[in-house]
């Protein structure tokens, strides 16, 4: 079946993209000024000690050989050993944090996507009214603000200056169940939601307006269908399609954008892990996290492509 073949081909393309990303990541981290051995031993290390450690770390081998070894290890699920602190396996260093960040992104996605699509569709329906104008100004203002500004404003409003209803920092207790710490998620999720919302709202507003002007919507109304049915059955499935790619881009951005937001709320995720790793010159961790972020981008775009095909009858049946 060509549809399966098409998806397989996209997956292969995704892996090729990831391969190039891995080359870039490896080269960039190796070209960074500074040397892991020096970073570990500190500024007063003797050249002899440095040489020994370099040999231990395999830094004396050619870059291509090291890249091949790294890639080989990754394919076995081995992300290498952290150079900092206890020299634990990278998987262990980032494992819990990865889970925390994943949780944050998924929560933010589950709140922001339906909410912004709903607002987008509704403002399209109420096009050129006061409500629409207000929503337009609000979303434009929001999209002009960087996410850390949004976060700070939220902290000022809800946790410090005006109201004191939410904790200003979100230091999760890894040993207690997360369900009991839900209040810690609210501010980071709100910040991320407000950061991606404007773009998706504008996307869906535009695509819904286009759909509402279409002849098949006129036809649905001339058939006497009630307005909620026209929106739900006739408009939304068609309006969502052009917004899928943009939404995927926004979610991919979310995955990267959490670096700043996590730092702001002291949330123990990959964002703060990445900040630590960079300051420690912990190359294996930097490489692993960068690759994971790249994989997220590739995966989300792939998912968007496949979803677009699956919910567009013309594309789906055209593949058969």
């Amino acid at each position: 079946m060509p549809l399966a073949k098409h998806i397989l081909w996209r997956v292969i393309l995704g892996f090729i993209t990831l391969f190039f990303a891995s080359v870039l990541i490896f080269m960039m981290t190796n070209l960074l000024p500074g040397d892991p051995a020096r970073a570990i031993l500190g500024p007063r290390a003797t050249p002899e000690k440095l040489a020994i450690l370099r040999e231990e770390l395999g830094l004396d081998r050619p870059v291509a050989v090291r890249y091949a070894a790294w890639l080989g290890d990754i394919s076995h699920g081995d992300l290498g050993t952290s150079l900092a602190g206890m020299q634990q396996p990278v998987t262990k260093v980032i494992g819990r944090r990865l889970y925390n960040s994943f949780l944050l992104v998924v929560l933010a996605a589950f709140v922001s996507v339906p909410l912004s699509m709903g607002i987008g569709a509704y403002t399209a329906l109420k096009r050129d009214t006061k409500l629409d104008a207000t929503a337009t100004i609000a979303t434009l203002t929001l999209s002009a603000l960087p996410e850390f500004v949004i976060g700070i404003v939220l902290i000022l409003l809800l946790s410090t200056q005006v109201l004191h209803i939410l904790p200003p920092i979100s230091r999760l207790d890894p040993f207690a169940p997360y369900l009991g710490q839900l209040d810690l998620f609210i501010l980071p999720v709100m910040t991320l939601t407000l950061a991606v919302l404007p773009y998706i709202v504008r996307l869906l507003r535009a695509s819904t307006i286009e759909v509402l002007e279409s002849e098949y919507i006129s036809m649905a109304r001339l058939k006497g269908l009630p307005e909620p049915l026209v929106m739900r059955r006739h408009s939304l499935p068609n309006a969502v399609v052009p917004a899928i790619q943009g939404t995927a881009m926004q979610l991919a951005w979310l995955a990267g954008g959490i670096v700043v937001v996590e730092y702001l709320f002291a949330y123990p995720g990959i964002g703060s892990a990445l900040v630590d790793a960079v300051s420690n010159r912990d190359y294996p961790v930097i490489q692993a996290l960068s690759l994971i972020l790249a994989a997220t981008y590739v995966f989300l775009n792939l998912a968007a492509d496949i979803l677009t095909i699956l919910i567009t009858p013309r594309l789906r049946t055209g593949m058969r």
Partner: protein
Amino acid sequence: MSDVVLSVKGLRVELEASGADIDDEVEFTIHSGEVLGLVGESASGKTTAATALLVHQRRGAVVAGGEVVIKGRDILSLSPVELRKVRGGLASYVPQDPSMSLNPALRIGTQLREILEVHGFGASDAERAERIREMMAEVLLPGDRQFLRRYPHQLSGGQQQRVAVAMAFACRPSLIILDEPTTGLDVTTQAHVLRTVKDLARTYGVAALYVTHDLAVVANLADRIAVMYAGRLVEVGPRDALFRGAHHPYTRRLLASVPDLAGKYALRGIPGRAPLPGKRPPGCSFADRCDYTEPRCIEAFPPYEGPEEHRVRCWRWEEIARLSLQNDFVPRRACDASRGATGPVVSAKGVRAFYGTTEALHGVDLEVRPGCCVALVGESGSGKTTLARAIAGIHPGKVEGEIRLGDHELKRDARHRPKADRQAIQYIFQSPYGSLNPRRSIGQILEPPLRTFFDLSRSEKEDRMVEALEMVTLDGSLLGVYPDQLSGGERQRVAIARALVAKPTVLICDEVTSSLDVSVQASIVELLVKLIDETGVAMIFVTHHLPLVRTLAQEVTVMNVGEIVETGTVDAVLADPQAEYTRNLLADTPDVDRTPF
């Protein structure tokens, strides 16, 4: 007479922003089982008037007055909920373009079922399913589950329109509004759809309003015809009375611009254009294009006059009604047999053309002599445009066979042809909206061929451009104007002028009139005839519309699925077609009956 189903009085539709009238003083009635044809050219307000009957308007327009009564119910005063019950239930709508009006994301079964569901038709799902099967059978489509599970794009244009017709008849409405439902369909498919609509309306006693720009389409279908011009009805009367003795000058000129299949009359366009909303004069809006204008026409718009069954809005209608229609018709000139005595200027032999690996043309021959017009006629997918493009060297796929210009063979791809060959063959495209760059002035559009093919000074170039514009009866002062300031007909004239500045020996016209109104189409055909006479250019005229061929071409080549079906002189082929395909095509082509004269 049977009972009145629809009665419209003083209907006015305005543009919300300016209050300018799109439609005004629209009045007509339709009885059960009767088909009324509402005929008008583009921007006449006919579609706006039709959808206003269901209180549906495009953005920015609003029903500003009048009365619409369907089966005793005053539609304009209904609440939204009551109105919804009327739409699709008491009165239904068949859209212009089913490929745009069926939801691409929903199966056709879903779209058929929902209209029954919202109108509470049938007591159970089983009853509704039965009704759908019944309707599909009426429009001659399979009603099985597999077919109903298809999406609109998996249906042909004709099948899509049948689904739309089935949907419209599903809840047994009293009134059905058809908005140019056959535009864009092939004549054969169009004939089938028209027959279906007529049969269903008769069988179930449904009143039908059939909106169209093409008088010929309603000639066999409608019982009565209403003619609309610039937002007002100018004449409403029984079909035969109207066709054989139209009272309004506009109706008469419109009739004269409908191509005559029988070939007695030449096409005659209507110069000028209809005034748009907001620019309509206080007097008769046809006055500036009319041959019978007198001072009172400019002062006030005439009221409806004449007997109840044949009403007309013209101050001089009684006088005009007595005049013979011949006044407005010009007899067609016979074909000049002496033409084409010399050898062909362009010829194709055994031409095969491909799209990818699919062969679209299966070895066809064509010859065109100087001063002669060959019409390439066929339905969509016949390969007529492919052949024209292969000759012009702009077919995007592989081309095999021999294409000659005069004494030498042409390269396949126009980009590889020498300058002289490219200059000799000029191509005019179907849509003047797509073929003129909106960011270039008319002068900038006409200049490139001059620059490429000739070595001329600035003033010489300008002279040539003005000369070309004058040949297409446009004013030389248009050089600085941009395409969006021109009407469709004017744009097509510019496209023709662009071909003419190159001084071609062969002119290829690809469906050049199909996006234009009939009155404009007629003027363009008049122009092309004049150009052949004056310049002796050879022409290949590609069209799907057989009657057009009569006025213009000396020879006709009929094509079907990539092959030539029949070729010969126009008179011979149309009077006595040899191929069955041509006979069917002729039979399906709607024509206006001009019997009495």
